[in-house]
């Protein structure tokens, strides 16, 4: 099977690193304040930490000269911002958050840019009695363990498994109604538990089971044109060393195609009318402030995909469902949003056939988004007819219908009277 051109992946990674250089230049000192949309603003710590993570992930490809030069240049740009007085004071005042503030310092140290006096100070602060005085969900707890292990060189201990067992990598994530925070927890757990692909994966359940969930989430976020989360979900395959499933391979194709058409992997937060109104530096600041993050995600994805044996395939190949199944499912698929349709249409028939599960996931996602539960009902019937209904999203959709039915009974919106409803 032919694989994606590595030179193309490298070019996309370098593009993300070039965006990072601009991002640090503009935002590493004062962050980004958006007077029209204050919720879009961020402090300098955010892009500094994200850039540190990006160059850390990219360093796996440091044997490629174009990547190595960019990683080193960015590291040198980050150094003064990673160990500022502000960072020192933040750690001193909030030792429970010390490891969060120290992420750039620790990653730079791993890349060969150490600072012994900062280490000494950090050692003092993390010995504080309040070092664990913060409420941390499992993903935050694992993040802390990950960065701590990178700093100390210690191997993961039993606490990792406890966090993973309590996390959304073990507990089924709500694919249809879950929050973005939960999806981020899901994706970030892959990053931390594999150390961005540098370590073998530690997963609380069978990898195939978790990737089945990832496939369902992929459909949701491709439908939502949320390329930030779609890209992060796709990381699950190269970070765990899994062979790219047909859905994942197609997802990568969609993101690459969108990036090619736009020039950057886009995010829906840009107000284009405003972008046109602005001028000069303010225009660049606004474009960069709203766009850099999703560009980084493509960088992370390509960095992971450049790992040995982790390059996505160019063609989509997999088990075929009966032809009639796909054509019947396609009747339920809308084209009112999303940018995947043209890519799907361009596929050979056999490739489309191997994406039946993707189309099934997408149909369910779309109909749930529109609250068209009658259609969800029909899709599940169809899936049962073709013995394709055992995926996580089908099970969750069936449960959703059950809850809505029960809700309806309570609200007395059903067409029948109470006696027709199955008793609990």
């Amino acid at each position: 099977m032919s694989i994606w051109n590595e030179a193309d992946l490298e070019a996309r990674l370098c593009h993300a690193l070039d965006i990072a250089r601009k991002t640090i230049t503009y935002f590493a000192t004062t962050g980004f304040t958006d007077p029209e949309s204050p919720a879009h603003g961020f402090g300098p710590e955010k892009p500094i930490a994200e850039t540190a993570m990006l160059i850390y992930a990219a360093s796996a490809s440091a044997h490629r000269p174009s990547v190595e030069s960019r990683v080193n240049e960015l590291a040198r740009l980050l150094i003064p911002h990673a160990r500022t007085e502000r960072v020192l004071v933040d750690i001193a005042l909030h030792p429970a958050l010390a490891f969060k503030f120290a992420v750039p310092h620790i990653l730079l140290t791993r890349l060969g840019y150490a600072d012994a006096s900062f280490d000494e100070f950090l050692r003092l602060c993390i010995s504080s009695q309040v070092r664990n005085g913060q409420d941390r969900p499992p993903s935050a707890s694992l993040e802390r363990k990950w960065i701590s292990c990178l700093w100390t060189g210690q191997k993961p201990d039993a606490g990792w498994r406890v966090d993973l067992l309590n996390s959304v990598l073990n507990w089924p994530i709500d694919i249809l109604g879950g929050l973005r925070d939960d999806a981020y927890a899901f994706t970030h757990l892959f990053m931390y538990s594999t150390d961005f692909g540098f370590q073998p994966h530690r997963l609380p359940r069978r990898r195939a089971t978790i990737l089945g969930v990832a496939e369902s989430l992929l459909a949701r976020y491709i439908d939502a044109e949320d390329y930030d989360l779609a890209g992060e979900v796709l990381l699950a395959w190269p970070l765990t060393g899994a062979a790219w499933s047909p859905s994942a391979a197609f997802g990568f194709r969609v993101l690459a195609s969108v990036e090619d058409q736009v020039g950057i992997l886009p995010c829906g937060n840009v107000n284009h009318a405003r972008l046109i109104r602005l001028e000069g530096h303010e225009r660049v600041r606004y474009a960069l402030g709203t766009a850099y993050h999703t560009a980084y995600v493509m960088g992370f994805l390509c960095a992971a995909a450049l790992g040995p044996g982790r390059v996505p395939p160019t063609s989509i190949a997999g088990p075929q469902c009966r032809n009639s199944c796909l054509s019947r499912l396609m009747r339920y698929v809308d084209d009112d949003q999303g940018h995947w349709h043209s890519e799907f249409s361009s596929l050979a028939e056999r490739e489309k056939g191997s994406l039946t599960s993707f189309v099934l996931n997408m149909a369910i996602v779309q109909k749930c988004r529109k609250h068209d539960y009658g259609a969800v009902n029909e899709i599940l019937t169809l899936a049962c007819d073709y013995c394709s209904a055992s995926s996580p999203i089908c099970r969750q959709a069936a449960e959703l219908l059950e809850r809505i039915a029960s809700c309806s009974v309570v609200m007395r919106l059903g067409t029948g009277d109470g006696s027709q409803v199955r008793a609990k």
Partner: protein
Amino acid sequence: MSNNLSHEDIAKRFIEAKVVDFGAMGKFITELGPVLAVSDSGWHGINLGRFNILACMLPPADVTRLVGNLRTAALTASVLEGAAEASLPK
């Protein structure tokens, strides 16, 4: 509910659920509006403000809009490409 729901279990559940007018329920839920999605403050909500170190996350406020037309979206990239090094802020 078991993780290992069989095809038959799924069929049984939605057949029984057919006593419900899904159309009416769907309309009702749509009219309620996307309360949760918009009001989600979540973990990042606690951390907004000066300490905004939530790496690798975009708060929901950032993705309330679809990307939309890709030709329009390409304006962002053209702005960034046009930002010459010489004109970067001091």
